C-alpha cells in the first residue's frame, strides 16, 4: 500500500494531477448545481408575483371573445417589488 502511494517515487507529481482534476470537476459540478437551484428559485419567486396578471389577461381575452357578461375582472397583479 505504501508502495502504491509512493507511485515509484513520483507521488509528488501523480497525486496532485488527480487531485486537481477532482477539484476542478467537483467544483464545477457544485457551482453549476448551486447556480441552477438559485435561478429556479428566482423564477418561482417571480412567477408567484406574476400569475395574477396572467390570469387576468386570459380572463380579459376570454371576455373579449364572448363579450360582456358582467363587470370585467379587476386587475390585481400590481407588483409592489421588482
Amino acid at each position, binding site marked *: 500500500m505504501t508502495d*502504491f502511494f509512493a*507511485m515509484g517515487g513520483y507521488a509528488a*507529481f501523480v497525486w496532485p494531477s488527480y487531485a486537481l482534476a477532482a477539484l476542478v470537476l467537483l467544483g464545477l459540478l457544485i457551482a453549476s448545481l448551486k447556480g*441552477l437551484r438559485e435561478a429556479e428559485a*428566482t423564477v418561482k419567486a417571480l412567477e408567484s408575483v406574476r400569475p395574477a396578471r396572467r390570469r387576468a389577461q386570459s380572463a380579459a381575452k376570454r371576455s373579449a371573445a364572448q363579450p360582456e357578461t358582467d363587470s370585467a375582472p379587476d386587475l390585481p397583479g400590481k407588483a409592489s417589488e421588482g
Partner: protein
Amino acid sequence: MHRFANPARFLRLSTLLLPWSAGATVVLLIVGLYLSLFGSPPDYQQGDTVRIMYIHVPAAWMSLFVYTNMAAAAAAGLVWKHPLADLFAKAAAPIGAGFTLVCLVTGSLWGAPMWGTWWVWDARLTSVLILFFLYLGYMALVNAFDDPQRGTRAGNVLLLVGIVNVPIIKFSVDWWNTLHQPSSVIKMGGPSIDSSMLIPLLVMAGAFTSYFIAVVILRLRTEIAHRKIQTLRFSVAGDGATG
C-alpha cells in the same frame, strides 16, 4: 436540428438524458480510476508518471472537443438565430476552461520529472495556453454587455475566429519541433499505444465526456432559467409602470 431549438423540447429531452449521463459518469469514473491507478502497468521509461496521462490526455481531448462544439453552436447561433445554440456556448465555456486548466497543469506536473522543465514556450504548449485564454476571453466578453443578446453575438464571433487555433493545436506536434510527443492514439495506422494503457485512457475519456454532457445540461437549464427571469423581470417592471 431545428427540432431542438425549442427550449421546452430541450428541457424534456434533457430530463431524459441527465440521469443516464450522470450515471455513466459515475460508473466510467470508478472503472477508469481503478484501471488507471491499479489495473495498468507503469511505463518502462516513464515509470508511474505515465498515470498522469489518464488525466492529462482526456482533459486535452475535452478542451478541443468542447471548444469545437461551442464554435459549431456559435455558427448555428449566428446563422439561424438559434436561441439554444447561444446558450449552449455560454453554458459550456466554464467546463471547457476547466478541462484546459487541468490539461495545462497536469502537463506541467508530467513535464517536470520527465522533461526536466515545468514549461517551455513551444508550439503545443503555447497554442493550448492560447486556447485557455480564448475560453476566458469568451466568458469575459459574453458577460461584458448589459444586453445579453449582444454579448452572445460578440462571443460567437470570437469563438469562430478562435477556431483556427484548434487545428494548430492538433498538428503543432507534427509541424514544429517540440518537446511534446506526437500523437499516439489518433493517428494514421491506428494507435501505437498498448491496450493495457489505451483502455484506461479511453474509459477516462468516456467519463469526461459524460461528465461534460451532464454538467452542460445543468448549466443550459440555468441559462434558460436566466432568460426566463429576464422576461419575467421585464414584464413585472412593465406592470409597475402601466398598472
